[in-house]
């Protein structure tokens, strides 16, 4: 069974044409992998479809803007995957 990270890494690799081996858990999707916000919409779409969820991008963006939170807290891949797992768990609860 693939882990959330493995699935997300494959999605990023296919969507953004980034070699899979360059996509590691400590990488920030934006600052390390060079993904822009438009590309991330395609990634969010693929994540939503793959996991049957709706990742709350709007809410995360608001939290980033309002709380001056660090982008790393949301878009470092290990933390992104934890957040995705949280959304999956909330859906299944």
């Amino acid at each position: 069974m693939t882990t959330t990270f493995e699935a997300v890494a494959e999605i990023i690799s296919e969507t953004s044409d980034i070699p899979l081996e360059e996509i590691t858990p400590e990488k920030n999707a934006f600052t390390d992998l060079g993904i822009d916000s438009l590309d991330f919409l395609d990634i969010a779409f693929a994540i939503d479809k793959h996991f049957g969820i709706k990742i709350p991008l709007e809410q995360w963006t608001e939290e980033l803007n309002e709380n001056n939170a660090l982008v790393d807290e949301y878009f470092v891949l290990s933390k992104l995957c934890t957040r995705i797992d949280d959304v999956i768990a909330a859906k299944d609860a």
Partner: protein
Amino acid sequence: MLLEYFQMIDNVEELDPDNGTILARAEVPMESPVFEGHFPGSPLVPGVLLIETMAQASGFMLLSRLKFEKMPFLANVTGAKMRTFVEPGAVLQVKAELEHDGSGFAKTRAEISSDGRKICDSNLTFRIMPFPNETLRGNMLDRFSQISRFPAE
């Protein structure tokens, strides 16, 4: 259609915001300043304006779905295919359906046909954002009421 004013949709004939579908009608005018350049002596509706037409149909469906509380802005066009020429006087059926309702974005699949022939189709992505001002929201509501018998909010 008033091509030079980007008023592409003439009438919303069917709208189901809950299921994310719309069918609209657009009549290509016989004359337009656009045809003076595209092309001199052989007027054709530019492909970019056909994409705009599909985007506007998608946009009105999304606006209705969002109850005009937020605005969809076209962000990405993929797989657009222009299958045949569109000349002055053509009557177009514009269909769009919601492919994915994301958080802060939406994807639609749209197509235009005329006389039963598919003219073009495309996948479109929209960013869903707050209206930049009340003037735009008011203008979108006005335009929707002009072309649609369906409730806006």
